[in-house]
């Protein structure tokens, strides 16, 4: 959660309900899975669950990033045309 807050400059603050209902959806959709890998024992908390992206999830992220990149590129071309 700290990372989400850092990445978004504090604009996005996830609440527990939003986080865990979405985690459940992503697990059910096969995009993430509970991970058996644990961090270093000093940093580990036995009560926590850890999740990892599945191969399908990685593909979905890559596809989504590519799709958004296309959108941004299209918008930038459009703005550049407007300025000419």
């Amino acid at each position, binding site marked *: *959660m700290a990372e989400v807050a850092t990445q978004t400059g504090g604009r996005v603050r996830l609440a*527990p309900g939003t986080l*865990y*209902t979405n985690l*459940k959806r992503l697990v059910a959709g096969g995009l993430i899975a509970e991970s058996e890998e644990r961090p270093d024992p000093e940093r580990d908390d036995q*009560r926590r669950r850890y999740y990892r992206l599945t191969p399908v999830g990685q593909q979905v992220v890559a*596809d989504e990033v*590519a*799709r958004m990149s296309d959108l941004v590129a299209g918008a930038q071309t459009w703005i550049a045309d407007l300025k000419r």
Partner: protein
Amino acid sequence: MTDHQRLYRRFLRLYPREFREHYGDEMRRFFAEQLWDARSSGGRLAIAALWARTILDVAVTAPREHLARPALVREHVNGSAATIVEPQPPRPLRYVILGLAPLWVFLVEVATASNKALFVKPPEMLGLPLGVSVVAFALGLMAVGIVALRRTSSVRSGVAAILLLSAPATGLLLVATPLIEQMQNLRT
């Protein structure tokens, strides 16, 4: 455990039990961490803001979780974009037809004029012929069964909705006419 945490624990009861059992502990810990952050950063104002966010969060996500389908499927579109979509729950036509059994029974009885006794006073209830109240109750049960069928996502719960709601309603309609006719005969 603080009063804030106890209150949040109560809010968690608004989520479906299965969801709570799986994620409840982590949600409580997450809330405790946010509470700790709020206390150390902004005091009362930050705690009030945390509660505002939390209440909104529960108000949005708890009903959604109650209505959520238990399974999700992925849909890959032309290899270029992917989305998660809610699957349609299995609602084969035969389940709906079975669920509507009380309606079929009632319509057949009306068509064959075999349930005339239902619409005659006495006996009466709340100023209406008793039979009308019985029909309304049975069709109401059936309606609840159909709503349950629409919401369900498994064959087992679909069958349960039919057995617990539509089947008793059908039985009630089948026995209502002879029973009311007997009551009317006893009076005369």
